[in-house]
């Protein structure tokens, strides 16, 4: 068992930066254990958004005046920070979208529907994807007669890597996979998977919605072609996401949305696209969102992504230990905390996850229950739903203890 004092980060100092963490819920101090759904925001991020609106709000790129130049500098500055954060070769490889979901749809349309995929081509995905990395590919399947295959999973929650041996063939054009499961926390070997994809000339798409916020991610090391994540899950504002793509890939790809900003020339009936990444940023972007995400990246860098990761490993280990003492607790996923993110899905005897969540809510503890936008995975696990607790930089071992105590209360109610 991890001792509570072992935690390397000064979590109390971090907590002080998050105003929401001092609030109470139903009379109890809030224990927020739903960061996999959306994270809380430090004051610095909140202030950066207010500051943009209060001091230099203007449309970016086209304004020939001071305000517009300040806004453009901050917006493009955020792009640079994010590019560095994921080790992209250049800021041109980072396009702003509204979410992981938009980023993946952009790839599915641009590479799949409007792109090069043909009937007979194949897409290899997995059973543990979030709906946002399932449904866009179903669009491609339906529009282009492309065949989909899904890599399976062992009972303990690891991808069946051997499935790739048979599923990846010369027909494979896209291999898509989540780097970290939002239900099980499983961290998948995306570098290995990208390599397999490239061996047959397929591209590799990585859903990094649960990885970029929680661990160091290096797109050059992974060598993926595309990677997608959301700002709101990494201390950033809502409504901002990132589409990373290798510059050549972005250049080859058709844009999803047409409009202002993304064009170079428009005549009646004809348009020419702007350079990457602007080609993918049709319409006025979420400028405050991008700038706030840049500040979130600063904040995470200050802590250090290695420390973030380490903190979550320790906390997950501690929590798994504390929870395993609760009667009827059944946790899903790998036992080894070093192979998973800070996400614990579980059931408790035959108490329905909805009831668990409601009772914990009364205790001030916010967890999630349901299918977590991963119904195919629920079918694979053969459960209608699970309860899920997820951690971030501001969570403490004491909160894991309160969760365990809360679950005991659930058992009391249903005794």
């Amino acid at each position, binding site marked *: 068992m991890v001792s509570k004092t072992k935690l390397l980060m000064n979590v109390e100092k971090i907590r002080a930066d998050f105003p929401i963490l001092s609030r109470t819920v*139903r009379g109890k101090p809030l224990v927020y254990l739903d960061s996999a759904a959306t994270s809380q925001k430090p004051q610095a991020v909140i202030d950066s958004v207010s500051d943009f609106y209060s001091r230099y709000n203007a449309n970016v790129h086209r304004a020939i005046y001071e305000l517009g130049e300040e806004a453009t500098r901050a917006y493009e500055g955020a792009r640079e920070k994010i590019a560095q954060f994921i080790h992209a070769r250049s800021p041109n490889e980072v396009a702003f979208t509204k979410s992981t979901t938009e980023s993946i749809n952009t790839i599915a349309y641009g590479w799949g529907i409007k792109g090069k995929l043909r009937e007979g081509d194949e897409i290899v995905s997995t059973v543990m994807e979030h709906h946002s990395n399932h449904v866009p590919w179903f669009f491609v399947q339906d529009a282009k007669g492309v065949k989909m295959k899904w890599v399976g999973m062992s009972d303990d929650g690891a991808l069946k890597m051997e499935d790739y041996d048979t599923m990846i063939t010369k027909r494979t054009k896209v291999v898509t996979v989540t780097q970290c499961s939002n239900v099980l926390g499983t961290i998948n070997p995306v570098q290995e998977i990208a390599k397999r994809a490239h061996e047959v000339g397929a591209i590799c798409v990585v859903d990094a919605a649960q990885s970029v916020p929680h661990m160091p991610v290096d797109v050059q090391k992974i060598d993926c072609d595309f990677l997608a994540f959301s700002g709101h899950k990494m201390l950033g504002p809502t409504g901002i996401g990132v589409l990373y793509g290798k510059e050549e890939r972005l250049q080859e790809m058709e844009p999803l949305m047409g409009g202002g900003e993304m064009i170079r020339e428009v005549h009646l009936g004809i348009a020419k696209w702007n350079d990457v990444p602007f080609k993918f940023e049709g319409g006025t972007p979420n400028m405050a969102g991008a700038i706030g995400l840049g500040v979130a990246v600063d904040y995470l860098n200050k802590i250090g992504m290695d420390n973030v990761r380490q903190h979550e490993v320790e906390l997950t280990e501690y929590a798994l230990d504390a929870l395993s003492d609760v009667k009827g607790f059944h946790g899903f996923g790998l036992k080894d905390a070093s192979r998973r993110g800070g996400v614990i899905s579980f059931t408790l005897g035959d*108490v*329905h*996850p*909805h*009831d668990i969540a*409601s*009772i914990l*809510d*009364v205790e001030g503890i916010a967890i999630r*229950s*349901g*299918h977590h936008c991963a*119904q195919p995975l*629920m079918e694979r696990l053969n*459960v*209608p*739903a699970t309860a899920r607790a997820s951690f971030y930089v501001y969570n403490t071992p004491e909160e894991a203890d309160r969760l365990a105590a809360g679950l005991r209360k659930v058992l009391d*109610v*249903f005794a």
Partner: protein
Amino acid sequence: MADLKALYQEQILDHSKNPRNFHKLEPADRTALGRNPLCGDQFTVYLRMEGDRIADVAFEGQGCAISKSSASMMTQAVKGKTEDEAEHLFDRFHDLVMGKEADPDSLGKLAVFQGVSEFPIRVKCASLSWHTLKAALESKGSISME
């Protein structure tokens, strides 16, 4: 613990553990499947009608304590009622769980669901079986809520 007691009343827990009329009805005149894909809840409601009247009603399926106990108590409440009476009762039940019912006690045993109104997101749990009943009465095969 005030709200907790309000939500998980003794009777609700009892009905969720020992649901009444929890079986298939064969043959049934009308049947409907109600689902809430968000939480995986899923109930089938079976009806045997005598003219306009619900002669017998039963259900099968799985769900949370709120949805299961509500289904169980729903079957007790509507057995013997006419279609109109059942629909009227549903309206009042819906008002109850939405916190809009002026005289909860007049709803008899169903009044235990009053506490749901403090947990708006659970309203759908409490009313799933009722919506399914309605679908069966209207001979719609299935409904889905979210």
